[in-house]
């Protein structure tokens, strides 16, 4: 009797025991899925590629942080703040601290770039394992993932020098990686990854995918490969603080120039992109026109309500007006001497350097120390008006044909001499200057390889001002410190009205254009906004106060008040820029690195 009852009880418990094997504790994920599913379906795989791009837009990533600060200060561009010691300025004036208030956050660009790289690594592994590589659509996706990874690395290497090298998804073993000599990453990107990606993706407009500048095309892969090759073959600061070119024979300058020549020339000869008018390129950008085949080759596709291109870069609107409901812009701008580097007839000058801002719906001149990038204008938006307080949604123009031409000219000059290179510089000049000035300029430039180099130095500055490429150019040419020293000196000349600025008027004179501007004035709008556009006299070399006073304009005596901007000039760089070519790795990442990341000696 009792035995029987024991058996009953045991059976009850045994029912539990039977289920006690570990299987009962398996709880697979439900609302998420694994790689094999995502990467065997084109639509899902495409969305995974979009996941890579998304990291550009995350808060404190490219949008609003990297974009704004990396690239400052140069001879052409500088940070507009007045206090040289504030957290934003120090990112630009070669004195950042590891605990910088703008950057030292766990969601900074550093983290988000590695997030993008990890996503790219997962996509690449997924596509290689599960994707149909005979299908051109899958090949396009793989090529895009490889290229986007290179974009992240490109900016990481520029801003931080040696960084951890991650080309495989993270595992417990690879969670913490030390810095890797950047040369090895360049070797991988230039000689391996991008070469492979070229053949995977289509030319612009060759497929539906590449009919927009928001997707990676073969022209972009080639352009990016060229840009990276120039960086890889150029000078830069090394871990020990010295500045030199790479010791790796694979990255020898000549080898790199060969790649640049081959790639850029092939893009130019493909004729899948057109230069068009200089101003048109930026109007298109501000208008969110992403049709492929024009000058733009690839843009970071910030969504309509995300991205802070105009927010930071545009000609500012102090108050909301008919052109924008976002009163922002003007955080950075061209240096005051940039305007004077252009030929007065150079069509690029007034598109690039703007001396006014918008207040209560009209343009009013600001101060000599605060010029603005005219390439980015709220008023050029035709189809929409920005209403968000924080973001404008304009794309970031990452690569355009003008850059390709200049890279081609530079590489061909180095390999084959100025005569061979001339054909690649000429189209850039043709759309900027009158024909006779182009001829004269080229005659001087082709006199020697050295002279052509100087022309490239100058033209890249004039062409790409405000596109945040100058600093990296100066570094690879090993001209960063010397150029900034010259810039400081020249700005002091402008301040003191010395040298070529000796005869500049003391004041400027302006009025709002009601009908047509006077011939003596300078106007920055190719299409006048009646009762909004400002015309200014007194900015051009050779103009006089006497004539200015006679025009009947309002005089603006605060334009060049000396006291206000001498400190800014001094603050162009605080330390020797060559000692601070890189930002430090922010403290939060040093702290999170399990002791494997260390900053260079100057940041310790």
């Amino acid at each position, binding site marked *: 009797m009792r035995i029987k009852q024991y058996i009953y009880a045991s059976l009850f418990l045994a029912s539990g025991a039977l289920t006690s094997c570990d299987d009962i504790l398996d709880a697979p994920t439900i609302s998420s899925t*694994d790689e094999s599913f995502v990467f065997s379906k084109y639509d899902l795989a495409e969305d995974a590629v*979009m996941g890579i791009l998304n990291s*550009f*837009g995350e808060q404190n990533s490219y949008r609003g942080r990297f974009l704004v600060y990396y690239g400052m200060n140069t001879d052409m561009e500088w940070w507009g703040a007045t206090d040289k010691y504030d957290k934003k300025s120090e990112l630009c004036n070669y004195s950042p601290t590891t605990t910088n208030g703008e950057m030292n956050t766990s969601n900074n660009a550093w983290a988000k770039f590695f997030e993008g790289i*990890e996503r790219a690594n997962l996509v690449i592994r997924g596509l290689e394992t599960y994707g149909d590589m005979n299908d051109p659509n899958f090949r396009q996706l793989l090529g895009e993932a490889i290229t986007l990874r290179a974009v992240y690395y490109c900016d990481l290497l520029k801003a931080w020098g040696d960084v951890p090298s991650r080309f495989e998804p993270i595992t417990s073993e690879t969670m913490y990686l030390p810095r890797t000599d950047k040369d090895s990453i360049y070797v991988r990107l230039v000689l391996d990854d991008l070469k492979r990606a070229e053949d995977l993706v289509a030319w612009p407009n060759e497929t539906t995918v590449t009919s927009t500048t928001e997707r990676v095309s073969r022209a972009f892969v080639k352009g990016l490969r060229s840009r990276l090759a120039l960086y890889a073959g150029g000078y830069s600061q090394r871990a020990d603080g010295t500045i030199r070119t790479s010791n790796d024979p694979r990255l020898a300058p000549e080898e790199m120039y060969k790649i640049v020549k081959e790639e850029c020339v092939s893009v130019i000869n493909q004729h899948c992109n057109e230069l068009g008018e200089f101003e048109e390129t930026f109007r298109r950008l501000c208008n969110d026109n992403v049709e492929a085949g024009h000058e733009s080759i690839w843009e970071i596709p910030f969504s309509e309500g995300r991205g802070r291109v105009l927010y930071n870069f545009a000609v500012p609107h102090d108050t909301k007006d008919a052109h924008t409901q976002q009163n922002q812009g003007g955080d950075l701008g061209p240096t005051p001497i940039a305007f004077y580097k252009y030929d007065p007839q150079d069509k690029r000058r007034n598109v690039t350097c703007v001396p006014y801002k918008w207040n209560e719906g009209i343009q009013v001149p600001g101060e000599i120390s605060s010029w603005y990038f005219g390439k980015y204008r709220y008023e050029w938006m035709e189809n929409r008006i920005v209403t968000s307080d924080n973001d404008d949604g304009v794309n970031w123009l990452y690569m355009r044909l003008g850059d390709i031409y200049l890279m081609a000219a530079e590489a061909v000059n180095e390999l084959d001499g100025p005569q061979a290179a001339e054909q690649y510089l000429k189209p850039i000049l043709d759309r900027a200057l009158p024909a006779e000035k182009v001829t004269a300029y080229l005659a001087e430039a082709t006199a020697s390889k050295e002279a052509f180099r100087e022309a490239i130095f100058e033209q890249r500055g004039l062409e790409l001002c405000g596109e945040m490429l100058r600093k990296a150019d100066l570094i690879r040419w090993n001209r960063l410190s010397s150029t900034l020293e010259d810039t400081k000196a020249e700005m002091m000349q402008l301040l003191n009205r010395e040298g070529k600025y000796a005869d500049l008027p003391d004041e400027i004179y302006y009025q709002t254009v009601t009908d047509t501007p006077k011939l003596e004035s300078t106007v920055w709008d190719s299409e006048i906004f009646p009762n909004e556009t400002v015309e200014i006299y007194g900015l051009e070399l050779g103009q006089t106060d006497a004539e200015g006073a006679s025009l009947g304009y309002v005089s603006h005596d605060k334009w060049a008040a000396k006291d206000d901007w001498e400190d800014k000039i001094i603050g162009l760089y605080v330390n020797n820029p060559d000692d601070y070519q890189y930002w430090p790795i922010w403290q939060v990442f040093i702290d999170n690195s399990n002791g494997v990341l260390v900053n260079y000696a100057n940041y310790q």
Partner: protein
Amino acid sequence: MNQKSQIKRWAATLLMSLCCLMAFAQGKNVTGQVTDPNGEPLIGVSVQVKGTKTGAITDFDGNFRLTNVPEGSTIVFSYIGYVTEEARVGGGNKPLNITLREDAQSLEEVVVIGYGSVKKKDITGSVATVDADALVAVPVASAVEALQGKLAGVQITTTEGSPDAEMKIRVRGGGSITQSNDPLYIVDGFPVDNISDIPTTDIEDITVLKDASSTAIYGSRGANGVIIVTTKSGQEGKINVNYNAYISVKKLADKLDVLNAPDYAKWQYELALLGANSQEPNPSSFTKFFGNWQDIDLYNNVDTNDWQDIVFGRTGTTFNHSLSINGGSDKMKFSFNYSHMDDKAIMQMSDFVRDNLSLKLNVKPTKNTKLDFSVRYAKRKVSGGGMNEQNEVSSSDSRLKNAILYTPFPVAGLSDESMSGGDTDPDFNLYHPLESISDNDRRQRRETLNLNGSFTWEIFKNFQFKTEFGWDTYDNDDNRFYGLSTYYVKDKVTDTADKQHPAIILTGTERNTFRNTNTLSYDFEKLFAKDSPHHLNMMVGQEYIIRKEREMTNTIHGFPLSYDADDCFSLTTQGHAYAVEDYYSPNDILFSWFGRVNYDYDSKYLFSATFRADGSSKFAEGNRWGYFPSAAVAWRVSAEPFMEGTRNWLDDLKLRFSYGTAGNNNIPSGQIVQSWQSVSTNIYVNGITSYWAPSKTMYNPDLKWETTITRNLGLDYTLFGGRLNGSLEYYWNSTKDLLIEFPTAGTGYDTQYRNLGKTENRGFEATVNWVAVNKPNFGLNFNANISFNQSEIKSLGIMNDFTAASGWSSRITGDFLVAVGGEVGQMYGYRNDGRYEVSDFKGYNTTTGQWELRDDVVDSSPIIGTLRPGSMKLKDLTGEGLVNAEDQEVIGNANPVHTGGFGMNMRVYDFDLSANFNWSYGNDIYNANKIEYTSTDVTKYRNMTTEMADGKRWTNLNPDGTLCNDPAQLEAMNANTTMWSPYMQNYVFSDWAVEDGSFLRLSTLTLGYSLPKSLLSKVKIQNLRFYVTGYNLFCWTSYSGYDPEVSTRRKTNLTPGVDYSAYPKSRSFVFGLNLNF
């Protein structure tokens, strides 16, 4: 699992058992009266003929009547709280009058512990209880509220004043850092998420298990303590009907004073001058809204709005009533409860409704089997968005600031525009206080249904098998409306067509939990001789819990402009679906084995040991199983022969010690594999509506159990016939392998859950109850408890410290420091050093228009902005003459030194009076409101609180409307002012905003009157009591904000004690009645 058919089968069994019959026998009639030692009749005493089913219950006069009692049989009189008596039925017809003695020691009382119960005198662990009497005496909305201040070692904080405010419960501090420290809640054996939905009238008692020897039986989930709620079951005997009702009225308890109209205007003028840094009077930023300085007198007589009164000033009312019916026979007992609560809160557009229904049946179909079945249903509706929320889009949507800082009188261009379409001056950035409430409207509806059934079979004597099945379903709808003034609509709605249109987010959460527990217990009584001092029993069991969760989020943008919250919720098709996310969490499965042995020798030497093995699906194979052993010993010193001499005054003295482990797996499920998720929100790139990406939290296949070791030393005492009793406890808990959401930024993922670090909690607790007087018409007793807890972070793995941001302002980052050697809740900021005086400056430089600081004076400008006399001054801790981010340190601690409560109960004839106090001592409050209400940051046109009233704040304003830059004059003007100038570039968190949060609150004061029984018995009423209770009548504190009991930034565990935009507390009076028949 086919739970439905299971339930059907049981329902059938129950029906059959209802048909059981009562048996009758032949004999004589016996009558009599049962009284207490004072001669008072005892009502409801069970009178039973021993060995038969014949029985009765005493009536209102204590009388009973039994029929057909065989002569010579024994009658048993039993009554809870009294010693059971027996009497033989004699030959005559003399009434059988019995006096029952009070069981004063209450040591025989049974206390519910995990998977069983034990007599109070045999408890070896640290266990605290609150019984129904204490819960019902004071009418409170929830079980948690009722516990406040009543239990040593259990700290309960009401985080704000809203009717649905979260109550934060910490048992002995809590060991986790980033993860929840909430205790495990068990209701009738079933684990639930919270107990705030259970009306107090439903509760039989609440037990809190504090040390590991008690909680280890719950294994993995017991590390932060276990709160066991037992709901009321039917009582054998006549049907008992209880009706309780109350209404309450409440008013805002406290208001903050703001500047009056002329002072507001005057400050705006000075602020405009400072902003322009100009010598010219009448700066345009002032004149465009307020006219010229010369006309400022106009504001002396302007009518002002008391926004706090408009928003929170209404009289709140609550109506609450509950009905419970219970009764039954020895075969079947039932208990039915219904309660309803309707609460209109003090804040506009805020109310709360709750309905509860429960039914419990206990059936004894045969002599050795038992069936128990219970259903609990709760429905809760909360309307209104409150003042802030934890899952906020941005703290800029917090509402309280609008009620404090909005223009006190209408200002054309500032206050009028904002009423019509969500636009406001960007520098003002405030919205009409009522608009901000309606633009952040919210409806929450929650329904929970819990079904439990168990079958107990005593297979043979002392050998018992019990199987329990339970099913719990939780259904929560959270409908959130975002109007035009919200940050969400302004920033997150990105499609051009939907911009500046109302939006809603509807979140539905559905959670189902199924549980099956099987236990076998055996009492080894038979093994020992009948009078053997050895007692041994053991229990083994097995449990399986599976929890499934699904969350459905619908985001709809672009509603017509005229739509309010209700329009949007009911007409969802009028907007554009932006995102639909239906997310199924991985199942959370727990499979466990457990066992317990209790042994005592003559109730003098007690020993108990438990062991539990838990397998959790949250961990990968190899790390799944956690083993949690514990043991406890106790020595009843008073039972020793050498204590013989003390027997006349010392009833009981017990010394206990326990040591044990408990675990924690409190992390989201699905952390052991990296999976791909589709994301359709926060899209930053063009051309897509969703993308696939791995989670930002990196997977970690090596995760394992977090383990807490507790050591507990306790002393229980009962003196003077139970008139004085209590306990003293000391504990030392250490938690290792902490599950921490570890920052891994820079690797490619933001965080990863890891096991690392170690924390410790040590503390001391004391409880005392004293029955001072216990006479028929006069009783007086006191109770008090106090708890000290000190926690320390012993290790954070590879880190030494990290900061956490409370996030009330995006410009204040890292205002809490988590550091080795410290504890969670350390506030991190600057040291305030008053203000800059004129003498701190060399003088005013007219060329630059700046005041020049003396070289030997610390420069706070990196934090405060451009300095001039009167600017706030901070201390330079690093000594380099400049105040920057390096000059922050720990400036406050949210953890109290001790907390506790005390109470008094008195009865005089038919009146009763009780008072309950609770306190907290030594904790700091981070008064973020105060910072926002006294500094400008980057804003303009905002009002301030009177800490910055004219005459108190530094002034820079000459009577002629110019900025004073003359040193002597400036000094003279400010000779009597004490505060710095509110003008600064940023909000600054300094120790000025850290305030002592100590308080002593008279939480309830109740006066009741029970109608005389003699009167009531005529209308068949057992008990009728009327009472009035005052809540929150006094709060003694030096805290300057609304209420010192506050914690509004609860998104992470790391930022407690912040007072920012809390829903203000109210003071209320309750009028109610208890009716029992």
